[in-house]
C-alpha cells in the first residue's frame, strides 16, 4: 500500500458563503469536494439555531499542495472580512493522487 501525500483543506463557514467557496474552487479547476452542515460557535457567536441560513457548513477539499496557496489566498481575501469563517490545512495520504 503506497500512500501519496496531499493536502486536506477544511473550511467551516456560514452556509450562505458555501456558494462563494465552491465558486472559488471551480475557478481553480477543483471539482472534488465534500460538504456537510454543522453547528458552531466562534467570534460571530453561536450558529445553528434558528433559520437554516444561519447554520454553518464544512467544505473539505483534498488537493495537491501546488494549488493550495492560491485557493487559500482567494478565500481569505474575498471572504474573511464579511463572513463567519475558519479554515485549516492538514496532511493526508491518498492512494490515487491522480484523482486530485
Amino acid at each position, binding site marked *: 500500500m503506497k500512500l501519496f501525500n496531499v493536502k486536506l483543506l477544511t473550511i467551516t463557514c*456560514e452556509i*450562505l*458563503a458555501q*456558494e*462563494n467557496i465552491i465558486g472559488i474552487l471551480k475557478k481553480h479547476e477543483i471539482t472534488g469536494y465534500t460538504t456537510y452542515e454543522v453547528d458552531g460557535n466562534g467570534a460571530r457567536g453561536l450558529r445553528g*439555531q*434558528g*433559520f*437554516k*441560513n*444561519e447554520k454553518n457548513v464544512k467544505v473539505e477539499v483534498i488537493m495537491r499542495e501546488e494549488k493550495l496557496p492560491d485557493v487559500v489566498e482567494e478565500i481569505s481575501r474575498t471572504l474573511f*472580512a*464579511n*463572513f463567519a469563517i475558519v479554515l485549516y490545512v492538514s496532511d493526508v495520504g491518498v492512494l490515487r493522487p491522480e484523482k486530485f
Partner: protein
Amino acid sequence: MEILELIQANLLTPIILFFLFGIIAARIKSDLKIPEAISEFLPIYLLAAIGLHGGIEMRNTGFENMLIPMFVAIGLSLLFTLNHYQILRRLGKFNIFDSYALASTYGAVGAVHFSVGLSFLKNQGVSSEGYIAAILAVLEPLAFILAIFMTNMAVSKQIKAKKQSFSDDDTEIDVGLNQTKTKLSKVLHESITGKAIVILLGSIVIGYIIGKDGFESIKIVFDDMFTGAIVIFMIEMGIIAGQRLDDIKKVGIFLTGFAILIPLFNGIIGVLVSTALGLSIGGAVMFGLLMASASFIAAPAVLRHAIPQAKPSLYITSALGITFPFNIIVTLPILFTISTLVHTGEGTIDLFNYITEVFS
C-alpha cells in the same frame, strides 16, 4: 376603543398565543424546537396554500383589474424603499450597506405576515381579492433588486472615484466592476428563482387552472389544515424571535422606533391607497399588510450575497424580533379598523386628517 378591543381579541387567537409562547420558551432557555425539516417545509406549504387559494379566486373574479393595484404596489414599494434608505442613512446614520439592506428588508414583503393576515381575515369572516397573492409574488424580489442595484451603483461609483485618483491599475478595477456586474446578474437570478417566489407563482397558476372543482381533492390539506399549520410554524418563529431578543439591544433605539413606526405608516398608506383603488375591506387590509411587512426569511438569503458587508444581525433581528410581532399583534387590527372605517364611509375624511396629523 374599538381598535383596542380588536387588538385584544386578536391577541387571544391561537396564532398569536403560540407565537408568544415560542418567545417565552426561548427566554426560559427551554430546549423546545420544531425540527428543522418541519420548519423548512412549513413556509413551502404555506406559500403553496396561499398561491392555490389566490389562483382559484382569480379564476372566479378575473385578473383584468389586478394590473393597476399591482403597479401601484410596485410603485409604493420602490418609493418606500428609497424613503427607508434616506431615513436610515441620514437620520439613523447607518453606513451605506446597512442602510440599503434595512431599506430593502422593509421594502420587501413577508410571506409569514401574509399567512397570518389571511388567517386573521378568515377569523373575521372577511374575504380578500385573490390577486393579492400575485402581488405578493411580484413584490417579493422587487425591493431586493432595487437595493442590490442601488448598492452596486454606489460601490461602482466609489471604485470609479478610486480609479481616477490611481489611474495606473486600470485593469484591476475593470475586473472589479465586471465582477460586480456578474454578481448582480447572479443575485437577480437567485432572487427570481428563489423558492418562495417559485412555489408561490407556481401554485397561483395551478390554482387558476384547476379551479374550485380541481381543488376539492386536496382542499383538506391545502385549506382546512392551513391555520393549524401556521400555529406550528408560529411556535418556531416565536422561538427564533425569542432567541434574538438579546440582540435587540444592539439594534438601538433609532432602529427600534423605525421598525415599529415605518411599517405602521406604510401599512396605513397601503390601506388608504388600495381603498381608493377600489379594493374590498379585506383586500385593503392584505394590501396594507404587504406594505407594512418586512422580510425575514427571504431577506438574509438574498442580502448576504448581494450586500455581504451589511450586518444580518441588524436586519433579521429588527424584522423578526420587533416588526413582525408588532405587525401581527397591533398593526393588523389597526389596518382592519381603518379599512372598515374608510369602506363603510363613516369618517373617511376625518380619519385621513387624523392619520396625516399623527404622522406629519
